[in-house]
């Protein structure tokens, strides 16, 4: 199963993950 998020955010939105990284619920994905 997969979850896809598509969202609008300001230009300065940054992801704090890398491809292939394991994540858990509530872990920081990105921030403005």
């Amino acid at each position, binding site marked *: *199963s997969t979850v*896809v998020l598509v*969202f609008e955010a300001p230009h300065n939105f940054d992801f704090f993950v890398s491809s292939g990284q394991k994540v858990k*619920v*509530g872990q*920081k994905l990105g921030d403005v």
Partner: protein
Amino acid sequence: LVDAWQNTPTKWYPLPIAAGALLLVVLQYRKKSIAREVVVNEDGQEIIRLKGPWHVHVIGALPLRNLSRVWGYLNSLELPVWLRPVGFRVYARIFGCDLEEIDPQDLTQYASLGEFFYRKLKDGARPIADAVLVSPADGRVLHFGVIKNGRIEQVKGSTYSLDALLGVARPGSPAPAAVEFPNQKMAEVNHRHFAEINGIEYSLQDLLGTSTPSSSGTSTPTVETSSSDRDGAAQTGASAKKHGERVDASVPRDQSTTEAVAQDVSMATEVGLRPTAARRDSFTSVRTKPGNETFFVVIYLAPGDYHRFHSPAAWVVERRRHFVGDLFSVSPWMAKRLENLFVLNERVALLGRWKHGFFSMVPVGATNVGSIKVNFDQALRTNVGSRRGHPVGTFTEAVYSAASPILNGQPLIKGEEMGGFCLG
């Protein structure tokens, strides 16, 4: 053969550089032409087809939906109590589940593998980070980035259409057509448009397809439920679907109107949206703010992962679109080989808004986990019936306006449990 294998001398000949270069050009051209190949119908709309190597077509020929349902049935069978701890420990060992964090920890209380698969976690097992966007699920980040030209990158070099994923139309694309299925009397809207994204200057009305009923000329009114008849929302929804109307699938709240309004206002503050009674038609006027971009992130849940999903942000879910589709595996192996995987598979697109504008979350099913649950949606039924009669790109839509009339949707706070994936 043995003699020939052992004694035949190997002679190496230099390959002319021109031949090698030509081969590389041909391979590159072929790769690009496959990647860019977009099959359209007579209306210029993209037709999503199964594309990939031969083994993908072999898998595609299998009755995946039936297999998925059989798998779900087998895993719903009650296991003998003595077998449960041993069986679940073996499963946990193979797939890497952490049994220390599950609730309840007594493995005999999980009657079947399906129940264990949909296990809960202890309170506090997943602390919520202080950021605007957090992970909605346990899993592995497959891909993330900015959406360019309306295409989301599945893997390097392979993309799929954002329009097809969410069922949205963009400015410049033909007006969406409402398709009436005589057998089901269910209004489904075909949104298989493919058009270049027009920068960020598209209205949320177009993005979410809120103009569909009027633009198509077909009446698909929202089923409005007053506070007094919210208890019958599910029944109303089921009846309304048969008559081609849009369903309000909100879970009714057992509260007085005053309390509900106070809660909505409080929630609006938390979500970061201004509470207003006019939110119902806000998408006709709100535009994507200049300076914004559309981002995406794809998270893959492995079989051993905790399979409930939570709200990744504070947002309001206004509608869901259920796309009946195939149930291919969504493993990274398959994602590399099957183009349009996430558009072909059954999925539930939850559409709404957060403080920065448009927000959506799309749980995508797979062969082993074809059933998608959404806690606040009583009318949603996934992985039931046949895929026939549901062409790729069509969906059934429900709105959640009764959940919070002030916010015109289901408000969610960051980290709140939303639903999950079940076996089969």
